[in-house]
């Protein structure tokens, strides 16, 4: 397994792999730009949190996951779904609330998942998925299974009680999990400096005698190297770790936030010089792995793919009102368990009053 860590530094020796990483980042960028546009066209409702600018932090670590590993992320989750290989059409369909969506249109933007690829959400409460990810690591440990868990979250989550409890449990139980804080410098409109007594978030690991480190989250190779190494350690030695990846979101917290009142235009511009895609393109070109023509072709292919995803999502059917009560429960006996409850049920649940749905 030590090779896993070595390979993480060695992506540039594998052109196909390196281009796959770039393509994923370009796909995330394009997908998010089009999602933003579709939101303004009211095809996407509710909240919609974009990862534009954070592609390297997302993609770099997810690229290190193997078939035995599991992934949990926050509500800024489109990039994760694409990075694990979910079809862009199914992800877009979920944003559109369609039954071909990854969660059949029941979850929306914040609750993407792909059980077959071990991507277990897409979670809406800041910090809430950290203890749950610990439970997944506990299950791996319990079953002596070979994998590890990667749990991504934003800087805001590090100030919740759930963060503390999750890291403490992972440390005392020696669980195979890497906590990755994607530090984009703001929790909504509150800066990390303002919100965190120790703004160097990786140092929080000390409190749990856990390994913590910070890498440049806009350098996909650095993210990949660190995540690969820490995941290998989690798998092999059942040692948890806290990885801080510093990055920046160009857009607001969600599409409803212009992202302008709590930061300056100069600040946003300064991060464009450190753009993760531009930087990785430069590295690939330096190593003669990519020319302008191939890059243009890649961008075109990705654009076409996202365009097709939008067309498919728009054409797909939405779940119907007769599916409203599906999957509240899943036990095979749930109907018989509940069948004595219907008598004189309140308005909205009786069969008769439900008839307006049809």
């Amino acid at each position, binding site marked *: 397994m030590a090779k896993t860590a070595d390979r993480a530094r060695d992506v540039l020796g594998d052109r196909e792999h390196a281009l796959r990483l770039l393509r994923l980042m370009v796909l995330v960028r394009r997908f998010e730009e089009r999602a933003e546009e579709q939101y303004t066209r009211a095809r996407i409702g509710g909240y919609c949190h974009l990862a534009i600018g954070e592609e390297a932090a997302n993609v770099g670590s997810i690229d290190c996951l193997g078939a035995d590993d599991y992934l949990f992320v926050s509500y800024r989750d489109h990039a994760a779904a694409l990075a694990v290989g979910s079809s862009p059409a199914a992800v877009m369909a979920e944003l559109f609330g369609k039954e071909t969506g990854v969660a059949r249109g029941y979850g929306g933007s914040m609750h993407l998942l792909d*059980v077959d690829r071990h991507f*277990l959400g897409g979670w809406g409460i800041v910090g809430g998925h950290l*203890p*749950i990810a610990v*439970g997944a690591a*506990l299950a791996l440990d319990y079953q002596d299974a070979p994998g590890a868990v990667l749990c991504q979250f934003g800087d805001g989550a590090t100030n919740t009680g759930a963060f503390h409890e999750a890291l403490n449990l992972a440390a005392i139980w020696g669980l195979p999990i890497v906590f990755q804080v994607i530090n984009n410098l703001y929790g909504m409109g509150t800066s990390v400096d303002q919100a965190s007594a120790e703004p160097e978030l990786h140092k929080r690991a000390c409190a749990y005698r856990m390994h913590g480190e910070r890498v440049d989250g806009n350098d996909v190779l650095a993210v990949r190297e660190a995540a690969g190494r820490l995941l290998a350690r989690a798998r092999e030695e059942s040692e948890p770790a806290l990885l801080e990846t510093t990055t920046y979101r160009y857009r607001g917290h969600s599409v409803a936030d212009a992202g302008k009142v709590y930061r300056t235009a100069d600040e946003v511009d300064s991060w464009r010089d450190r753009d993760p895609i531009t930087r990785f393109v430069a590295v690939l070109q330096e190593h003669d792995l990519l020319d302008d023509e191939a890059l243009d072709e890649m961008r075109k292919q990705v654009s076409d793919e996202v365009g097709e995803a939008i067309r498919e999502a728009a054409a797909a059917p939405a779940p119907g009102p007769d599916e409203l009560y*599906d*999957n509240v429960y899943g036990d095979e006996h749930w109907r018989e368990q509940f069948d*004595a*409850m219907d008598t004189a049920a309140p308005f909205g649940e009786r069969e008769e009053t439900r008839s307006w749905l049809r």
Partner: protein
Amino acid sequence: MTYREALRRALDEELDRDERVFLMGEEIGRFEGSYKVTAGLWEKYGPKRVRETPISEEGFVGAGIGAAMLGLRPVVEIMTINFIMVAQDMVVNHAAKIRYMFGGKVGVPMVIRTPGGAGAQLTAQHSQSLEVWFAHVPGLKVVAPSSPRDAYGLLKSAIRDDDPVLFVENLVLYNVTGTIPEPDEDFTLPLGRAHVAREGTDLTIVAHSYTVRRALAVADRLAQSGFQAEVVDLRSLRPLDVDTVVESVRKTSRVLIAEEGWATFGIGAELAARIGRACFDDLDAPPERVGGAEVPMPYAKPLELAALVLEDKLEAAARSLLAECGLAGAGAGRD
């Protein structure tokens, strides 16, 4: 066998039957559980299957959810229901939502066991009956057995269920004794089914958990005055067996709903609405309800006794309802 021992037997059988089942909670191992429900299980099954946790309810309830999502069957103990509030986000915002918001693609087969109840001068922060909060939430199931037999059969069903179940025990019930079937892997009781604990014709008293025992004692007292009260033990709050309650009320025409928790927005409120619709033409009087005094639980013994739903309070409510219906000799208190 005591209620406590019946629970332990159910846990023991399920641990033995299914490798996916494991226990998790504070002091449940070497300490044997704050109320000794898990005594002996840590020695028998070891620290992996009887996992001791720090005081981190949000953390370990969340860990139970994650383990359940990967196919294990965690049985998480919260020392008392009062402490579940620091894990409320995990229970209500996570466990209850997961199957639905992920389009049915993953579930949470987890049990949370926890005792509620009051009566030992444990005061305001340790004397609550909060189960109705959870019975309000789609996605959860809430079970509250009143006898050793029900505790045994329902806990096994809860552990085998594919959805999150809050299994509410009661501090005062732990030492109550009763008979349970011989150890039998196949004996379970279905969730969502109430039980007529005593048959009667004049009045229905609906209750759950420890209040069922008080209702049965009150039924004995009423019988001495010639009134036959029927006692319906709900056993489960969500699913709620309204059919059994309605059938009883149609027979007796009078109903008193009793609960240990506060009555406002409680089980009585819920059932009164449903009974009002289903039994409108059968009722001699509006449904009556009685619950704990609407104060934080006080410490001083006379105050605590005044706040609890003791037999005297229940009996007075029952007799007042019978008198309202013109039943001669009902009186307002004990004979």
